[in-house]
């Protein structure tokens, strides 16, 4: 339950100042059980925080709590800096277990929809092109997404993080069904994001080869979290 030393706020591409996500004394219940109990941490712009821990330790619960999908029993999540008019979830990409990919739309139509829906500006085309190119979906762009393999669908789901620009990425097991090359693409996207002043919180079992990371280890003990520690890598 230590607070992490906060870094000085610096300008980033996402706004005037860097953002800092601060969670204090979080308590989150799931189905009547307390999954997260008394957890505090802080993540700053330019940092990637890896959530590790065994199955059932509360990684998904924590990410969904941060995204605002689950109510907090106690404690608070707030954002220092950032757009005060928007909630945290409106400034975050949330990549969950499901890919949010429509099988009857083509790969390009899927990405274009999210680019238009999630962000209102005139650069939809360039964002879509960047997302498709980075995740190597160029060749598949006119293909109905229903015919993609599991790994390709996952890449299409991940392409959303580049299709709209948001400072916070909440990734839940982003590497599921990805091959090593694709994991590299994801790691490159995450490193780019943190280098540009973005913030990433990812639950993962794999060492991704990320830079500027720290780790938050959740432990499951009778489905409760007894302690948490942060390690600067």
């Amino acid at each position, binding site marked *: 339950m230590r607070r992490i030393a906060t870094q000085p706020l610096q300008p980033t591409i996402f706004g005037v100042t860097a953002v800092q996500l601060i969670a204090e004394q979080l308590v989150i219940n799931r189905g009547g059980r307390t999954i997260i109990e008394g957890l505090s941490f802080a993540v700053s712009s330019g940092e990637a925080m890896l959530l590790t821990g065994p199955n059932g330790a509360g990684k998904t619960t924590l990410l969904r709590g941060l*995204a605002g*999908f*689950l*109510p907090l029993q106690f404690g608070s999540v707030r954002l220092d800096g950032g757009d005060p008019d928007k909630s945290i*979830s*409106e400034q*975050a*990409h*949330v990549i*969950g*277990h*499901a*890919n*949010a*990919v*429509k099988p*009857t*739309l083509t790969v390009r*139509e899927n990405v274009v*929809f*999210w680019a*238009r*829906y*999630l*962000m*209102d500006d005139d650069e939809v085309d360039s964002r879509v092109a960047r997302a498709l190119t980075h995740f190597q979906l160029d060749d598949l762009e006119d293909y109905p997404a229903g015919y993609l393999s599991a790994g390709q669908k996952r890449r299409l789901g991940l392409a*959303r993080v580049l299709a709209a620009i948001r400072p916070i990425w909440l990734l839940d097991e982003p590497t599921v069904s990805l091959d090593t090359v694709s994991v590299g693409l994801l790691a490159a996207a995450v490193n780019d994001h943190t280098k540009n002043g973005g913030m990433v919180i990812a639950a993962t079992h794999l060492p991704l080869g990320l830079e500027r990371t720290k780790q938050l280890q959740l432990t499951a003990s009778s489905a409760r979290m007894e302690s948490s520690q942060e390690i600067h890598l």
Partner: protein
Amino acid sequence: MKAFLSLLTRDLRLAARDGGALGTAFGFFLIVVALMPLGLGPDLNLLSRIAAGILWIALLLAALLSLGRIFETDHDDGTLEVLATGPLPLELVTTAKALAHWISTGIPLALLAPLLGILLNLELKAYPVLIATMLAGTPAVSFLGAIGAALTLKARRGGLLLALVVLPLYVPTLIFGIAAVSAAAGPDGLTASFLILSAISLAAVALGPWAAAAALRIQMQ
């Protein structure tokens, strides 16, 4: 606004590509109406007297078949949660989706109804009124249906539950829809019934999205 339009066009495109949903609703509408003369006998006077009622009930049942899809597929593939993180409040998300349902299902069913009226010996002068009342009444079908679809989102075998939740809500629409058609065949022409039907639709359009969004918030936890 851009986000709203992109969501609406995406839903319409999905409805057009899937096709099956509208096909099932059309087929169901046709079969229910076609069964009536077989069950009631070839009494033309009787059929033309109850034609409006049969068409309305069949339309409600046919629309019911497609209601579940308003939120179900988006919930299953995780799209709904991402939509919730978008710039649109959930109330506008439900508005866009219910509106897409009305355009892709409600309007086609309303336009198909006069064709099926022939099977029931509906009076000729009732046809324009039938189309008008169905176009005016079907928004209520979609927007009230969205509430039921949101409430039963996670229920297993939600289809039956959906019917139990939604059909009672359709009672006013049904009563005034039929009353408007019957009244138009009489000496007075279009009457208060049509206006009340329109008022019900407007109220459903105004209030349905709030209720559906509230239900979705609970379901998504």
